[in-house]
């Protein structure tokens, strides 16, 4: 029921996102434009509206929904794998790695495609490094070793980012770096989407198929193994998939925080932790959340607000509210 409601919410938000903006489009006009496109006919409206809808708003709305859903799914997976509801998708250093890659590409004055490629590769490399070091650290709980290694590697990469910012040209490169680090959906083109979409789906589909089995992985390793699960193998697959979606999303949008932490938490409060119920709701809520935030970011002020700032502004109080709500519920 909640899943259907959140699907409806997402569809409404998608329609709103296509209507509002600097060029306001009425619902009737939208129908006429879409109908003309579908049937190959023509409409009496200005041709510029076609470009606004098909070149700008549809790709951007799809990107927002895709990235929001992907980050929420990755966050849900990591929270389950690490048995901790306060974990976010960048726990293993994806975001820091992607940021260092992107910042390096901007510093080297490479084209936008290269910035995205560097970000994607940087994210994957950072996680590969964390997993490699985490496995080499013996004699600890494997999960604790991974998380601590993630924190250390993330800090190290942060130092690299700081160094490049320090060296960057303050008039051209530094603003571009700052802008990327804030996260933005305004520059996403249909071509970007076509590259990111298959990567996100390649990570999402295995996660979706394994959604019931994820429950078992939230138990202790001993219990999961004794229930018949090959824990090390399954965890490796899921970390790979969650990293893939996060890196692909971050590569085209920059760093947009809070979604991966907040949304799975909210979904768990709504339908409980059972992953097969929680994951689809998480994805839908994440998609709706980022789409709503991005729409507000477009229309709230005369300049575009960075969505990463908005997610933090909305996410932090919302998270605290959820936290107090879950406490009072637990006490009952």
């Amino acid at each position: 029921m909640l899943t259907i409601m959140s699907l409806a919410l997402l569809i409404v938000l998608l329609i709103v996102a296509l209507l509002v903006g600097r060029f306001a489009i009425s619902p009737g006009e939208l129908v006429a434009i879409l109908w003309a496109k579908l049937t190959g006919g023509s409409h009496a409206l200005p041709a510029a509206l076609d470009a606004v809808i098909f070149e700008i708003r549809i790709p951007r709305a799809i990107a927002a929904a895709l990235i929001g859903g992907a980050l929420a799914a990755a966050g849900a997976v990591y929270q389950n794998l690490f048995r901790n509801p306060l974990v976010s998708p960048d726990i293993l250093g994806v975001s820091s790695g992607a940021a260092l890659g992107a910042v390096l590409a901007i510093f080297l004055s490479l084209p936008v495609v290269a910035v995205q490629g560097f970000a994607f590769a940087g994210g994957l490399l950072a996680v590969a490094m964390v997993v490699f070091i985490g496995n080499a650290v013996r004699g600890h709980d494997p999960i604790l070793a991974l998380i601590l290694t993630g924190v250390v590697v993330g800090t190290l990469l942060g130092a690299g980012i700081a160094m490049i910012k320090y060296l960057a040209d303050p008039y051209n490169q530094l603003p571009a770096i700052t802008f990327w680090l804030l996260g933005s959906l305004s520059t996403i083109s249909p071509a970007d989407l076509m590259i990111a979409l298959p990567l996100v789906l390649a990570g999402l589909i295995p996660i979706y198929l394994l959604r019931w089995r994820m429950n078992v992985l939230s138990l202790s390793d001993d219990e999961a193994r004794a229930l018949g699960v090959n824990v090390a193998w399954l965890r490796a697959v899921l970390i790979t998939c969650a990293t893939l979606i996060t890196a692909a999303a971050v590569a085209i949008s920059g760093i947009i925080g809070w979604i991966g932490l907040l949304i799975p938490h909210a979904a768990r409060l709504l339908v409980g932790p059972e992953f097969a119920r929680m994951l689809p709701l998480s994805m839908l809520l994440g998609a709706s959340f980022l789409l709503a935030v991005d729409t507000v970011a477009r229309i709230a002020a005369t300049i575009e607000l960075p969505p990463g700032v908005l997610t933090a502004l909305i996410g932090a109080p919302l998270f605290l509210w959820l936290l107090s709500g879950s406490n009072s519920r637990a006490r009952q």
Partner: protein
Amino acid sequence: MREKDKEKDLIETHALAYGHPGRTLGHDINLTVSTGEVLCVLGPNGGGKTTLFRTLLGLLPAHEGSISLRGKPLQDCTPVECARIMAYVPQAGNSYFAFTVRDVVLMGRTAHLGLFARPGVSDLDAANAAMTELNITHLADKTFTQISGGERQLALIARALAQEALLLVMDEPTASLDFANQALILHEIVRLKTSGRSVLFCTHDPDHALQCADRTLLLQHGNVLALGAPREVVTAANLKTLYGVDVELIESPSREQPFCRPKLPPG
């Protein structure tokens, strides 16, 4: 040994040495658990009970010797094969996400489901049957983290039953339970035995061994101090060696086995 006997032995160790990686705790462990048998392991804290159980469950590699599960070497068994024969019932103190009891019990079906499968009607039936057997159907929709320790332990036993395992390996099932819940768990162990399952459990209370075990293993510093019928093994002399405490065994007119209690200084 005849084939039929091999089939009857669920788990068998031969000259087993076990321990944590790089540190062997105990040597030369030879034990078997047969169908319908309850084996109780007694020993002080740090005596290796949990490590031995984890080794028998295939969670830690054997250092030397062999473990076989229904005649097949344990290291050749996949996790699914292991899970269909033996189930692990951990201590109920573990913290979980706030799953419902039904969700927890359903997780016992993992070894019977394909990689991408979700539990179906037959799995739900198995989970319901397991909860019915343990009289906890009223807990099905309660949150696992909000029920009592005894109820959690019962839910975990139900999960092992839903797993359709023949042998339940219980790590201190009565730990941190109140008096009534301890009795409840012991009652369930006896009932599991009468229903044809085997139980391997460890405890701190020698009375538990006397009350419901077919055989008792005393584990001292990782090694076997004694293994045999509770009455022969749980003696004042053995318990003094094991725990360093003077105990007396008091015969009871109402039951076969004696009671065990520590001797306190007079006054």
